[in-house]
């Protein structure tokens, strides 16, 4: 605290004082419900994932194909125009070798995550995902990859309907 103040004024209460009911108290849980929606574009995107497809939105003004899709073009400041399917192949734009899992717990075998520019979308547009079927020594920026989808019955309309992106051998589609 400080030289002059060594103890705050007032009455200190411990968690036990409260749980044992040493002081009068009011307990309440407000009925604070919420509904969060993915929005027009992302809802269609998630639905298409369940069918094993990636969908984007095209803006007729700047001719860009926006992925992930959005209903408004931030460049032209106008609504986007059409739905466009893109490919599930792409190029590794950037990646990380992570020794922490999604709960920030240490793990001995690293997970590989990164951003993929997808074929069919405008340059530098794509998604972040896991990489598989490759080692941390093999992964590199510019590597060609392809989505590995979960079996149809396991898909839930989530980005995790894609298991990971695996290396795409040269010449293959």
């Amino acid at each position, binding site marked *: 605290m400080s030289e002059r103040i060594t103890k705050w004024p007032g*009455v200190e*209460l411990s968690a036990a004082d*409260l749980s044992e009911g040493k*002081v*009068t*108290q*009011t*307990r*309440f*849980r*407000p*009925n*604070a*419900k*919420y*509904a*969060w*929606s*993915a*929005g*027009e574009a*992302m*809802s269609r995107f*998630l*639905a298409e994932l369940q069918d094993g497809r990636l969908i984007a939105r095209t803006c007729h003004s700047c001719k860009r194909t926006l992925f992930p899709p959005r*209903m408004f073009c931030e460049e032209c400041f106008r*609504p986007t125009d059409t739905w466009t399917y893109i490919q599930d192949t792409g190029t590794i734009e950037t990646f990380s070798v992570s020794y922490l899992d999604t709960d920030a717990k240490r793990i001995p075998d690293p997970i590989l995550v990164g951003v993929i520019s997808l074929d069919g979308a405008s340059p530098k547009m794509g998604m972040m995902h896991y990489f598989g079927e490759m080692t941390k020594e093999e992964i590199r920026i510019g590597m060609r990859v392809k989505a590995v989808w979960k079996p149809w019955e396991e898909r839930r*309309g989530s980005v995790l309907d894609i298991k990971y992106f695996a290396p795409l051998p040269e010449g293959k589609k």
Partner: protein
Amino acid sequence: MTFLERTTDARKLRHWEGNMEADYIYTSGVAGERFFVALRDQGKMLASRCAACGLDYLPARLFCEDCFAELTEFVDVPQEGRVAALTVAHLDREGVRLSRPQVWAFVTFQGIRGGLVHRLLVPPGRARVGLAVRPKLKAREDRVGAITDIEGFEPVGS
């Protein structure tokens, strides 16, 4: 699709629903503790007194809002009060229609600054400003030291 055509109901799109776990524990505070313990154990209401200003405060509080002095003296609130203002509620706090309307009143007491907002235990037709009322307490074993230890205010003589 323009801004004016946008979807305003989240449930029409892919959505997630939840309930925020915003639980809280609210302690009564120093003066509130005196008030609620007296209500629970002795079945009476206390006001905090400022001798300098000649004021008795309800609900009881730690400081005089006129002179900022700390208040340590407590006095009994008269048994009988009067309805200063009232409202008839047709919906509960969740917005659900009540089977029977409830009357809520602000009750004041002679010589006391402040008052209490509580249920008025009369049918809406009988509720009026100026009605003489007294608190109806729960039985001693059911009292826990909360404002709900008072069931409501009932007309004097009923």
